Protein backbone atom coordinates (compact mmCIF):
# COMPACT_ATOMS: atom_id res chain seq x y z
CA UNK A 1 0.00 0.00 0.00
CA UNK A 2 1.42 3.37 -0.98
CA UNK A 3 1.74 6.06 1.68
CA UNK A 4 -0.64 8.98 1.37
CA UNK A 5 1.21 12.19 0.58
CA UNK A 6 0.67 14.86 3.21
CA UNK A 7 2.08 18.13 4.47
CA UNK A 8 3.58 16.27 7.44
CA UNK A 9 6.87 18.14 7.19
CA UNK A 10 5.03 21.40 7.87
CA UNK A 11 3.24 20.25 11.01
CA UNK A 12 4.25 21.74 14.33
CA UNK A 13 4.71 19.46 17.34
CA UNK A 14 3.65 21.19 20.55
CA UNK A 15 4.14 19.92 24.07
CA UNK A 16 0.82 20.66 25.77
CA UNK A 17 0.69 20.26 29.53
CA UNK A 18 -2.24 18.95 31.50
CA UNK A 19 -3.15 16.89 34.50
CA UNK A 20 -5.20 13.82 35.31
CA UNK A 21 -8.74 15.02 36.12
CA UNK A 22 -10.91 14.08 39.09
CA UNK A 23 -14.55 13.03 38.70
CA UNK A 24 -17.19 15.58 39.65
CA UNK A 25 -20.85 15.13 40.55
CA UNK A 26 -23.83 17.47 40.24
CA UNK A 27 -25.70 15.39 42.82
CA UNK A 28 -28.69 15.39 40.47
CA UNK A 29 -30.16 12.39 38.67
CA UNK A 30 -30.27 12.25 34.94
CA UNK A 31 -33.22 10.48 33.37
CA UNK A 32 -32.34 7.46 31.26
CA UNK A 33 -33.81 6.31 27.93
CA UNK A 34 -36.12 3.98 29.88
CA UNK A 35 -37.30 6.92 32.04
CA UNK A 36 -35.39 5.97 35.21
CA UNK A 37 -33.35 8.40 37.33
CA UNK A 38 -29.69 7.37 37.13
CA UNK A 39 -26.48 8.46 38.84
CA UNK A 40 -23.55 6.57 37.32
CA UNK A 41 -19.76 6.84 37.12
CA UNK A 42 -17.81 7.06 33.91
CA UNK A 43 -16.55 10.57 33.23
CA UNK A 44 -13.17 11.96 34.31
CA UNK A 45 -10.44 10.53 36.53
CA UNK A 46 -8.68 7.21 36.01
CA UNK A 47 -10.87 4.33 34.84
CA UNK A 48 -8.68 1.26 34.91
CA UNK A 49 -11.27 -1.25 33.74
CA UNK A 50 -12.71 0.53 30.71
CA UNK A 51 -10.14 0.18 27.95
CA UNK A 52 -9.81 0.69 24.23
CA UNK A 53 -11.06 -2.51 22.62
CA UNK A 54 -13.87 -3.08 25.16
CA UNK A 55 -17.50 -3.21 24.04
CA UNK A 56 -19.25 0.18 24.18
CA UNK A 57 -22.27 -1.61 25.69
CA UNK A 58 -20.45 -3.56 28.44
CA UNK A 59 -20.59 -1.11 31.35
CA UNK A 60 -23.12 0.38 33.79
CA UNK A 61 -21.73 3.82 33.11
CA UNK A 62 -22.49 7.36 31.96
CA UNK A 63 -20.28 8.16 28.95
CA UNK A 64 -17.65 5.71 30.27
CA UNK A 65 -14.26 7.10 29.32
CA UNK A 66 -11.41 4.60 28.87
CA UNK A 67 -8.16 4.92 30.85
CA UNK A 68 -7.04 8.39 31.87
CA UNK A 69 -9.14 11.54 31.36
CA UNK A 70 -6.85 14.58 31.20
CA UNK A 71 -7.63 18.29 31.45
CA UNK A 72 -5.86 21.62 31.17
CA UNK A 73 -5.02 23.45 34.39
CA UNK A 74 -7.18 26.49 33.62
CA UNK A 75 -9.97 27.06 31.09
CA UNK A 76 -7.80 28.48 28.31
CA UNK A 77 -5.23 25.71 28.72
CA UNK A 78 -8.05 23.18 28.70
CA UNK A 79 -9.27 24.53 25.36
CA UNK A 80 -5.72 24.19 24.02
CA UNK A 81 -5.22 20.57 25.10
CA UNK A 82 -8.73 19.72 23.83
CA UNK A 83 -8.19 21.21 20.40
CA UNK A 84 -4.52 20.37 19.83
CA UNK A 85 -4.42 16.76 21.06
CA UNK A 86 -5.00 14.32 18.20
CA UNK A 87 -5.82 10.61 18.24
CA UNK A 88 -2.57 8.63 18.20
CA UNK A 89 -0.44 11.36 19.83
CA UNK A 90 2.09 10.29 22.46
CA UNK A 91 1.65 11.30 26.11
CA UNK A 92 4.22 11.19 28.91
CA UNK A 93 3.49 11.37 32.65
CA UNK A 94 5.55 14.18 34.21
CA UNK A 95 4.78 13.61 37.90
CA UNK A 96 3.36 11.12 40.35
CA UNK A 97 4.09 7.47 40.91
CA UNK A 98 3.90 6.69 37.18
CA UNK A 99 6.24 9.53 36.16
CA UNK A 100 7.82 8.69 32.80
CA UNK A 101 5.05 6.31 31.73
CA UNK A 102 4.12 6.65 28.06
CA UNK A 103 0.53 6.54 26.79
CA UNK A 104 -1.51 7.27 23.66
CA UNK A 105 -4.33 9.71 22.97
CA UNK A 106 -7.27 7.48 22.04
CA UNK A 107 -10.11 9.99 22.00
CA UNK A 108 -11.64 13.20 23.25
CA UNK A 109 -14.74 13.93 25.27
CA UNK A 110 -14.95 16.88 27.64
CA UNK A 111 -11.46 15.56 28.52
CA UNK A 112 -8.58 14.19 26.48
CA UNK A 113 -8.76 10.39 26.77
CA UNK A 114 -5.44 8.55 27.11
CA UNK A 115 -4.66 4.85 27.28
CA UNK A 116 -1.68 3.68 29.35
CA UNK A 117 -0.44 0.13 29.96
CA UNK A 118 -2.46 -1.51 32.73
CA UNK A 119 0.44 -1.50 35.16
CA UNK A 120 0.70 2.29 34.82
CA UNK A 121 -3.07 2.84 35.06
CA UNK A 122 -2.94 1.30 38.55
CA UNK A 123 -0.38 3.93 39.65
CA UNK A 124 -1.73 7.08 37.95
CA UNK A 125 -3.64 9.42 40.30
CA UNK A 126 -5.90 12.44 39.72
CA UNK A 127 -3.74 15.56 39.78
CA UNK A 128 -0.66 13.89 38.26
CA UNK A 129 0.95 15.95 35.51
CA UNK A 130 1.35 14.88 31.89
CA UNK A 131 2.43 16.31 28.57
CA UNK A 132 0.85 15.57 25.17
CA UNK A 133 3.18 15.68 22.16
CA UNK A 134 0.40 17.27 20.10
CA UNK A 135 0.41 17.30 16.31
CA UNK A 136 -2.13 16.62 13.63
CA UNK A 137 -4.35 19.71 13.38
CA UNK A 138 -3.57 21.28 10.00
CA UNK A 139 -2.82 17.94 8.37
CA UNK A 140 -3.65 17.94 4.64
CA UNK A 141 -3.90 15.04 2.21
CA UNK A 142 -2.06 16.46 -0.80
CA UNK A 143 -3.71 14.20 -3.36
CA UNK A 144 -7.17 14.38 -1.73
CA UNK A 145 -7.61 18.08 -0.97
CA UNK A 146 -11.39 17.73 -0.48
CA UNK A 147 -10.91 15.19 2.31
CA UNK A 148 -10.64 17.31 5.45
CA UNK A 149 -8.59 15.89 8.33
CA UNK A 150 -9.49 16.64 11.96
CA UNK A 151 -8.01 15.30 15.22
CA UNK A 152 -6.05 12.62 13.36
CA UNK A 153 -2.47 12.26 14.57
CA UNK A 154 0.07 11.31 11.88
CA UNK A 155 0.63 8.18 13.99
CA UNK A 156 -2.95 7.09 13.20
CA UNK A 157 -3.27 8.38 9.64
CA UNK A 158 -0.48 6.15 8.36
CA UNK A 159 -2.12 3.07 9.93
CA UNK A 160 -5.76 3.66 8.97
CA UNK A 161 -5.31 1.59 5.83
CA UNK A 162 -6.62 4.33 3.53
CA UNK A 163 -5.85 3.85 -0.16
CA UNK A 164 -6.89 5.36 -3.48
CA UNK A 165 -9.84 3.46 -5.01
CA UNK A 166 -9.85 2.75 -8.76
CA UNK A 167 -12.40 5.55 -9.26
CA UNK A 168 -10.06 8.09 -7.67
CA UNK A 169 -11.81 8.32 -4.30
CA UNK A 170 -10.06 7.79 -1.00
CA UNK A 171 -11.11 4.38 0.32
CA UNK A 172 -11.30 4.14 4.12
CA UNK A 173 -11.86 0.83 5.97
CA UNK A 174 -14.46 1.05 8.77
CA UNK A 175 -16.26 -1.52 10.92
CA UNK A 176 -19.70 0.07 10.47
CA UNK A 177 -21.56 3.13 9.16
CA UNK A 178 -23.82 5.14 11.47
CA UNK A 179 -27.00 6.75 10.05
CA UNK A 180 -27.58 10.49 10.47
CA UNK A 181 -30.72 10.12 12.61
CA UNK A 182 -28.62 8.60 15.43
CA UNK A 183 -26.23 11.56 15.70
CA UNK A 184 -27.02 13.45 18.91
CA UNK A 185 -25.29 15.75 21.38
CA UNK A 186 -22.17 17.20 19.77
CA UNK A 187 -23.81 18.34 16.54
CA UNK A 188 -23.21 22.05 16.05
CA UNK A 189 -19.89 22.03 17.89
CA UNK A 190 -16.46 22.21 16.26
CA UNK A 191 -15.14 18.77 15.29
CA UNK A 192 -11.94 19.71 17.12
CA UNK A 193 -13.90 19.88 20.37
CA UNK A 194 -14.85 16.65 22.25
CA UNK A 195 -17.00 14.26 20.20
CA UNK A 196 -20.52 13.58 18.97
CA UNK A 197 -22.80 11.17 20.80
CA UNK A 198 -24.46 8.38 18.82
CA UNK A 199 -27.89 7.52 20.24
CA UNK A 200 -27.58 3.73 20.48
CA UNK A 201 -30.15 3.23 23.27
CA UNK A 202 -32.73 1.01 21.59
CA UNK A 203 -31.39 -2.56 21.40
CA UNK A 204 -33.62 -3.19 18.40
CA UNK A 205 -32.01 -0.30 16.49
CA UNK A 206 -28.54 -1.52 17.46
CA UNK A 207 -29.15 -5.08 16.29
CA UNK A 208 -31.02 -4.06 13.12
CA UNK A 209 -28.07 -1.92 12.07
CA UNK A 210 -25.54 -4.62 12.99
CA UNK A 211 -23.90 -2.42 15.63
CA UNK A 212 -23.96 -4.84 18.60
CA UNK A 213 -20.24 -5.53 18.31
CA UNK A 214 -19.04 -1.91 18.46
CA UNK A 215 -15.97 -1.39 20.64
CA UNK A 216 -14.23 1.65 22.07
CA UNK A 217 -11.51 2.56 19.56
CA UNK A 218 -13.37 1.26 16.51
CA UNK A 219 -13.04 3.26 13.28
CA UNK A 220 -16.55 3.98 11.96
CA UNK A 221 -18.21 5.88 9.13
CA UNK A 222 -21.01 8.44 9.55
CA UNK A 223 -23.50 8.92 6.70
CA UNK A 224 -24.81 12.35 5.65
CA UNK A 225 -22.39 14.24 7.89
CA UNK A 226 -20.16 17.23 7.08
CA UNK A 227 -17.82 17.90 10.00
CA UNK A 228 -15.42 20.40 8.42
CA UNK A 229 -16.58 23.49 10.29
CA UNK A 230 -18.66 22.10 13.18
CA UNK A 231 -20.53 18.82 12.96
CA UNK A 232 -23.75 18.85 11.00
CA UNK A 233 -26.25 16.97 8.85
CA UNK A 234 -25.44 17.19 5.14
CA UNK A 235 -26.80 14.61 2.70
CA UNK A 236 -24.07 13.67 0.23
CA UNK A 237 -21.25 13.96 2.75
CA UNK A 238 -19.48 11.39 4.88
CA UNK A 239 -17.43 11.57 8.05
CA UNK A 240 -15.08 9.02 9.58
CA UNK A 241 -14.43 8.81 13.30
CA UNK A 242 -13.14 6.78 16.21
CA UNK A 243 -15.42 5.61 19.06
CA UNK A 244 -14.12 7.38 22.14
CA UNK A 245 -16.30 6.31 25.07
CA UNK A 246 -18.91 3.79 26.18
CA UNK A 247 -22.66 4.45 26.35
CA UNK A 248 -24.38 7.23 28.23
CA UNK A 249 -27.95 6.35 29.29
CA UNK A 250 -29.63 9.73 28.73
CA UNK A 251 -31.65 10.26 25.52
CA UNK A 252 -29.78 12.41 23.03
CA UNK A 253 -26.47 11.06 24.35
CA UNK A 254 -24.77 7.69 23.84
CA UNK A 255 -21.47 6.46 22.41
CA UNK A 256 -19.02 9.27 21.52
CA UNK A 257 -17.37 9.45 18.11
CA UNK A 258 -14.34 11.69 17.44
CA UNK A 259 -14.13 12.93 13.87
CA UNK A 260 -10.92 12.19 11.95
CA UNK A 261 -11.93 12.67 8.29
CA UNK A 262 -14.84 14.29 6.42
CA UNK A 263 -15.47 14.65 2.69
CA UNK A 264 -18.13 14.77 -0.03
CA UNK A 265 -19.14 11.28 -1.19
CA UNK A 266 -17.49 11.87 -4.58
CA UNK A 267 -14.14 11.95 -2.81
CA UNK A 268 -14.43 9.34 -0.05
CA UNK A 269 -15.59 5.73 -0.06
CA UNK A 270 -16.21 3.64 3.05
CA UNK A 271 -15.10 0.05 2.88
CA UNK A 272 -16.51 -2.40 5.44
CA UNK A 273 -13.74 -4.19 7.34
CA UNK A 274 -14.24 -6.76 10.11
CA UNK A 275 -11.63 -5.34 12.50
CA UNK A 276 -10.54 -1.69 12.69
CA UNK A 277 -9.68 -0.83 16.28
CA UNK A 278 -7.09 1.53 17.73
CA UNK A 279 -5.78 -1.22 20.02
CA UNK A 280 -4.46 -3.10 16.97
CA UNK A 281 -3.88 -0.18 14.59
CA UNK A 282 -1.68 1.72 17.06
CA UNK A 283 -0.34 -1.42 18.76
CA UNK A 284 -1.41 -0.13 22.18
CA UNK A 285 -0.15 -2.47 24.95
CA UNK A 286 -2.69 -3.80 27.45
Amino acid at each position, binding site marked *: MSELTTNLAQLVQVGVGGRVSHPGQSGSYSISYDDRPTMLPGMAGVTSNIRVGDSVFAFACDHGEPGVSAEGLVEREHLAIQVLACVGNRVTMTSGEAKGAVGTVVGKHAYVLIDFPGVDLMRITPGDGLVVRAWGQGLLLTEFPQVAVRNCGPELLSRLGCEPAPDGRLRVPVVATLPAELMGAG*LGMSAEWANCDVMLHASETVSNLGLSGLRIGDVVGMADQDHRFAR*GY*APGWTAVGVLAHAMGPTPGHGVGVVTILTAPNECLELNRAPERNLRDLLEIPL
Partner: protein
Amino acid sequence: MNSEGRELVQTLLLGEVTSPELETSVYEVDSEGRAFVPIGCGGVRYNVKVGMSAFGWAADQVQPGASIANPVAAANRALSTYSCVGNRVRVRSGNAAGAVGLVTGKHERFGGFQQVLIDLPQQALELLAPRDRVVVEAVGRGLVVDAVPTVSLHSLSPRLWQSWSPRASEGKLFVRVAQSIPGRTVGIGSGRISATTSISIQTPKQALDREPQLLRLRLGDMVAISDWDAAYNTGYRKGSSLIGVVVHGSSRIAGHGVGLTILMSGRGDSLVPELDPDANLVSILGIQDHIVG
Protein backbone atom coordinates in the same frame (compact mmCIF):
# COMPACT_ATOMS: atom_id res chain seq x y z
CA MET B 1 -58.07 16.35 33.02
CA ASN B 2 -56.38 19.45 34.25
CA SER B 3 -55.62 20.69 30.76
CA GLU B 4 -58.27 23.39 31.30
CA GLY B 5 -55.81 25.06 33.63
CA ARG B 6 -57.28 23.91 36.95
CA GLU B 7 -54.86 23.04 39.74
CA LEU B 8 -51.96 24.74 37.98
CA VAL B 9 -49.82 27.16 39.96
CA GLN B 10 -49.18 30.61 38.55
CA THR B 11 -45.71 31.89 39.45
CA LEU B 12 -44.37 35.36 38.86
CA LEU B 13 -40.87 35.29 37.33
CA LEU B 14 -38.51 38.18 36.78
CA GLY B 15 -36.37 38.76 33.72
CA GLU B 16 -34.45 41.69 32.32
CA VAL B 17 -34.29 42.69 28.68
CA THR B 18 -30.94 41.35 27.45
CA SER B 19 -28.30 43.01 25.32
CA PRO B 20 -26.46 41.21 22.49
CA GLU B 21 -23.15 39.56 23.42
CA LEU B 22 -20.14 38.49 21.32
CA GLU B 23 -17.08 36.27 21.79
CA THR B 24 -13.52 37.65 21.69
CA SER B 25 -13.28 36.85 18.01
CA VAL B 26 -16.52 38.33 16.74
CA TYR B 27 -16.63 35.88 13.83
CA GLU B 28 -18.63 32.71 13.50
CA VAL B 29 -17.75 30.25 10.72
CA ASP B 30 -20.47 28.83 8.50
CA SER B 31 -20.77 25.24 7.24
CA GLU B 32 -18.74 26.10 4.11
CA GLY B 33 -15.91 27.67 6.08
CA ARG B 34 -16.86 31.31 5.49
CA ALA B 35 -16.51 33.74 8.37
CA PHE B 36 -19.36 36.08 9.30
CA VAL B 37 -20.44 38.32 12.16
CA PRO B 38 -23.57 36.88 13.80
CA ILE B 39 -26.47 39.23 14.56
CA GLY B 40 -29.96 38.49 15.77
CA CYS B 41 -29.75 37.15 19.34
CA GLY B 42 -30.17 39.19 22.48
CA GLY B 43 -31.79 42.58 23.06
CA VAL B 44 -34.65 43.97 20.98
CA ARG B 45 -35.44 43.26 17.30
CA TYR B 46 -37.74 46.02 16.05
CA ASN B 47 -38.54 44.49 12.66
CA VAL B 48 -38.62 40.72 13.24
CA LYS B 49 -41.99 39.35 14.34
CA VAL B 50 -43.67 36.06 14.98
CA GLY B 51 -45.49 35.13 11.74
CA MET B 52 -42.61 36.20 9.49
CA SER B 53 -40.33 33.77 7.62
CA ALA B 54 -37.65 31.88 9.53
CA PHE B 55 -35.39 32.31 6.47
CA GLY B 56 -34.00 35.18 4.47
CA TRP B 57 -32.69 37.33 7.29
CA ALA B 58 -29.11 38.66 7.16
CA ALA B 59 -28.82 37.24 10.65
CA ASP B 60 -28.11 34.06 12.57
CA GLN B 61 -30.84 32.35 14.63
CA VAL B 62 -32.70 35.65 14.67
CA GLN B 63 -35.14 36.01 17.55
CA PRO B 64 -38.47 37.83 17.04
CA GLY B 65 -39.42 40.64 19.43
CA ALA B 66 -37.33 40.97 22.57
CA SER B 67 -35.42 38.50 24.73
CA ILE B 68 -35.20 38.45 28.50
CA ALA B 69 -33.11 36.58 31.06
CA ASN B 70 -32.48 36.71 34.80
CA PRO B 71 -28.87 37.60 35.71
CA VAL B 72 -28.84 35.04 38.56
CA ALA B 73 -28.08 31.63 37.02
CA ALA B 74 -30.44 29.54 39.21
CA ALA B 75 -33.26 32.09 38.82
CA ASN B 76 -32.69 32.09 35.07
CA ARG B 77 -33.07 28.30 35.01
CA ALA B 78 -36.45 28.74 36.69
CA LEU B 79 -37.43 31.54 34.29
CA SER B 80 -36.39 29.34 31.35
CA THR B 81 -38.16 26.26 32.69
CA TYR B 82 -41.44 27.67 34.05
CA SER B 83 -42.17 30.20 31.30
CA CYS B 84 -44.70 28.81 28.87
CA VAL B 85 -45.55 29.88 25.33
CA GLY B 86 -48.60 32.11 25.54
CA ASN B 87 -47.94 33.34 29.11
CA ARG B 88 -48.67 37.03 29.71
CA VAL B 89 -45.70 39.33 30.33
CA ARG B 90 -45.68 42.85 31.77
CA VAL B 91 -42.91 45.44 31.52
CA ARG B 92 -42.26 46.75 35.03
CA SER B 93 -39.58 49.42 34.60
CA GLY B 94 -38.22 51.84 32.01
CA ASN B 95 -40.07 53.87 29.39
CA ALA B 96 -42.27 50.94 28.34
CA ALA B 97 -43.44 50.20 31.90
CA GLY B 98 -47.00 48.90 31.92
CA ALA B 99 -46.86 47.37 28.45
CA VAL B 100 -48.33 43.89 28.18
CA GLY B 101 -47.20 41.14 25.82
CA LEU B 102 -46.69 37.39 25.72
CA VAL B 103 -44.06 34.67 25.68
CA THR B 104 -43.45 33.31 22.16
CA GLY B 105 -40.63 30.87 22.91
CA LYS B 106 -37.42 30.00 24.71
CA HIS B 107 -33.94 29.86 23.19
CA GLU B 108 -31.04 27.94 24.73
CA ARG B 109 -27.54 28.28 23.30
CA PHE B 110 -25.33 25.41 24.49
CA GLY B 111 -22.53 26.84 26.62
CA GLY B 112 -24.07 30.28 26.11
CA PHE B 113 -27.40 31.68 27.15
CA GLN B 114 -30.94 30.70 28.08
CA GLN B 115 -33.37 33.41 27.03
CA VAL B 116 -37.16 33.78 27.04
CA LEU B 117 -38.53 35.44 23.89
CA ILE B 118 -41.40 37.89 24.21
CA ASP B 119 -43.73 39.72 21.86
CA LEU B 120 -44.86 43.27 22.68
CA PRO B 121 -46.88 45.85 20.74
CA GLN B 122 -44.59 47.86 18.40
CA GLN B 123 -45.00 51.09 20.37
CA ALA B 124 -43.82 49.34 23.54
CA LEU B 125 -40.93 47.68 21.69
CA GLU B 126 -39.76 51.12 20.51
CA LEU B 127 -39.56 52.28 24.14
CA LEU B 128 -37.91 49.14 25.52
CA ALA B 129 -34.24 49.12 26.54
CA PRO B 130 -31.78 46.47 27.79
CA ARG B 131 -32.01 45.92 31.59
CA ASP B 132 -35.70 46.92 31.72
CA ARG B 133 -37.48 44.56 34.10
CA VAL B 134 -40.16 42.26 32.70
CA VAL B 135 -42.30 39.86 34.70
CA VAL B 136 -43.71 36.62 33.29
CA GLU B 137 -46.99 35.36 34.73
CA ALA B 138 -45.87 31.78 34.37
CA VAL B 139 -48.51 29.09 34.27
CA GLY B 140 -48.56 25.79 32.41
CA ARG B 141 -45.91 23.58 34.02
CA GLY B 142 -47.75 20.57 35.36
CA LEU B 143 -50.29 20.54 32.58
CA VAL B 144 -51.28 16.99 31.58
CA VAL B 145 -53.85 15.51 29.25
CA ASP B 146 -55.73 12.98 31.35
CA ALA B 147 -57.18 11.28 28.28
CA VAL B 148 -53.72 10.73 26.73
CA PRO B 149 -51.23 10.07 29.55
CA THR B 150 -48.48 8.99 27.13
CA VAL B 151 -48.19 12.60 25.94
CA SER B 152 -45.87 14.90 27.94
CA LEU B 153 -46.47 18.64 27.81
CA HIS B 154 -43.76 21.28 28.18
CA SER B 155 -43.79 25.09 28.02
CA LEU B 156 -47.45 25.04 27.00
CA SER B 157 -49.71 27.64 28.60
CA PRO B 158 -53.40 26.91 29.27
CA ARG B 159 -54.19 29.89 27.00
CA LEU B 160 -52.31 28.33 24.09
CA TRP B 161 -53.83 24.89 24.83
CA GLN B 162 -57.33 26.32 24.68
CA SER B 163 -56.83 28.38 21.50
CA TRP B 164 -54.93 25.66 19.68
CA SER B 165 -57.57 23.15 20.86
CA PRO B 166 -55.91 19.75 20.32
CA ARG B 167 -58.50 17.00 20.18
CA ALA B 168 -58.25 13.83 22.28
CA SER B 169 -59.87 10.76 20.82
CA GLU B 170 -59.40 7.02 21.36
CA GLY B 171 -56.21 7.47 23.37
CA LYS B 172 -54.58 9.79 20.86
CA LEU B 173 -54.11 13.53 20.66
CA PHE B 174 -54.80 15.18 17.30
CA VAL B 175 -52.84 18.43 16.93
CA ARG B 176 -52.75 21.08 14.20
CA VAL B 177 -49.28 21.74 12.77
CA ALA B 178 -47.98 23.71 9.78
CA GLN B 179 -45.42 21.02 8.86
CA SER B 180 -44.21 17.56 9.77
CA ILE B 181 -40.42 17.18 9.66
CA PRO B 182 -38.21 14.06 9.78
CA GLY B 183 -36.10 13.60 12.92
CA ARG B 184 -32.84 13.23 10.99
CA THR B 185 -32.80 17.03 10.57
CA VAL B 186 -32.56 17.70 14.33
CA GLY B 187 -29.18 19.11 15.35
CA ILE B 188 -27.93 20.89 18.45
CA GLY B 189 -30.37 20.57 21.33
CA SER B 190 -30.17 16.76 21.47
CA GLY B 191 -29.68 15.36 24.97
CA ARG B 192 -30.92 18.51 26.69
CA ILE B 193 -33.75 19.02 29.18
CA SER B 194 -37.03 19.15 27.31
CA ALA B 195 -38.69 21.71 29.60
CA THR B 196 -35.97 24.29 28.98
CA THR B 197 -34.04 23.65 25.80
CA SER B 198 -34.63 24.61 22.22
CA ILE B 199 -33.77 22.17 19.42
CA SER B 200 -32.48 23.05 15.97
CA ILE B 201 -33.73 21.99 12.54
CA GLN B 202 -30.59 21.79 10.38
CA THR B 203 -31.10 23.36 6.96
CA PRO B 204 -27.82 23.40 5.03
CA LYS B 205 -28.20 23.53 1.24
CA GLN B 206 -27.76 19.74 0.97
CA ALA B 207 -30.65 19.20 3.43
CA LEU B 208 -32.94 21.72 1.68
CA ASP B 209 -32.42 19.84 -1.58
CA ARG B 210 -33.89 16.78 0.17
CA GLU B 211 -36.52 18.63 2.24
CA PRO B 212 -37.41 21.81 0.26
CA GLN B 213 -40.61 22.39 2.27
CA LEU B 214 -38.46 23.49 5.22
CA LEU B 215 -37.95 26.85 3.46
CA ARG B 216 -41.62 27.65 4.14
CA LEU B 217 -41.09 27.58 7.92
CA ARG B 218 -42.26 30.75 9.69
CA LEU B 219 -41.54 32.05 13.16
CA GLY B 220 -44.41 30.85 15.33
CA ASP B 221 -45.24 27.81 13.19
CA MET B 222 -46.33 24.67 15.01
CA VAL B 223 -44.32 21.74 13.65
CA ALA B 224 -44.14 18.00 14.32
CA ILE B 225 -40.87 16.04 14.39
CA SER B 226 -41.03 12.30 13.73
CA ASP B 227 -38.89 9.64 15.45
CA TRP B 228 -37.94 12.08 18.18
CA ASP B 229 -38.85 12.14 21.86
CA ALA B 230 -38.79 14.75 24.60
CA ALA B 231 -40.54 13.21 27.61
CA TYR B 232 -37.64 14.31 29.85
CA ASN B 233 -34.58 14.77 27.64
CA THR B 234 -34.47 15.31 23.90
CA GLY B 235 -33.36 12.40 21.72
CA TYR B 236 -34.00 9.92 18.94
CA ARG B 237 -36.75 7.37 19.58
CA LYS B 238 -38.17 5.46 16.67
CA GLY B 239 -41.95 5.74 16.47
CA SER B 240 -42.27 8.67 18.92
CA SER B 241 -42.98 12.20 17.83
CA LEU B 242 -42.90 15.68 19.30
CA ILE B 243 -44.50 19.00 18.50
CA GLY B 244 -42.82 22.33 18.93
CA VAL B 245 -43.15 25.96 17.94
CA VAL B 246 -40.60 27.77 15.75
CA VAL B 247 -38.94 30.34 18.00
CA HIS B 248 -35.91 31.61 16.06
CA GLY B 249 -34.66 31.83 12.50
CA SER B 250 -32.22 29.75 10.48
CA SER B 251 -28.48 29.48 10.95
CA ARG B 252 -25.47 29.15 8.66
CA ILE B 253 -23.50 27.28 11.34
CA ALA B 254 -23.24 23.50 10.84
CA GLY B 255 -25.45 21.53 13.23
CA HIS B 256 -27.54 24.63 14.00
CA GLY B 257 -30.72 25.89 12.36
CA VAL B 258 -34.31 26.97 12.87
CA GLY B 259 -35.08 26.69 16.60
CA LEU B 260 -38.05 24.99 18.23
CA THR B 261 -39.37 25.17 21.78
CA ILE B 262 -40.89 21.82 22.70
CA LEU B 263 -44.61 21.80 23.54
CA MET B 264 -45.60 18.13 23.38
CA SER B 265 -43.95 14.73 23.16
CA GLY B 266 -45.80 11.48 22.58
CA ARG B 267 -44.72 7.86 22.78
CA GLY B 268 -45.70 5.55 19.96
CA ASP B 269 -48.53 6.96 17.84
CA SER B 270 -50.19 8.91 20.67
CA LEU B 271 -49.58 12.28 18.94
CA VAL B 272 -51.21 12.69 15.54
CA PRO B 273 -50.18 15.82 13.61
CA GLU B 274 -52.83 17.28 11.33
CA LEU B 275 -51.54 19.64 8.64
CA ASP B 276 -53.02 23.13 8.74
CA PRO B 277 -51.20 26.08 7.13
CA ASP B 278 -52.76 28.41 9.74
CA ALA B 279 -51.10 26.56 12.63
CA ASN B 280 -49.03 29.58 13.65
CA LEU B 281 -48.99 31.45 16.98
CA VAL B 282 -50.24 34.64 15.32
CA SER B 283 -53.43 32.98 14.08
CA ILE B 284 -53.90 30.69 17.07
CA LEU B 285 -53.44 33.38 19.74
CA GLY B 286 -54.84 36.22 17.62
CA ILE B 287 -51.77 38.42 18.10
CA GLN B 288 -52.75 41.91 16.93
CA ASP B 289 -50.95 43.78 14.12
CA HIS B 290 -48.90 40.74 13.03
CA ILE B 291 -49.26 39.23 9.59
CA VAL B 292 -48.46 35.62 8.92
CA GLY B 293 -46.10 35.57 5.90
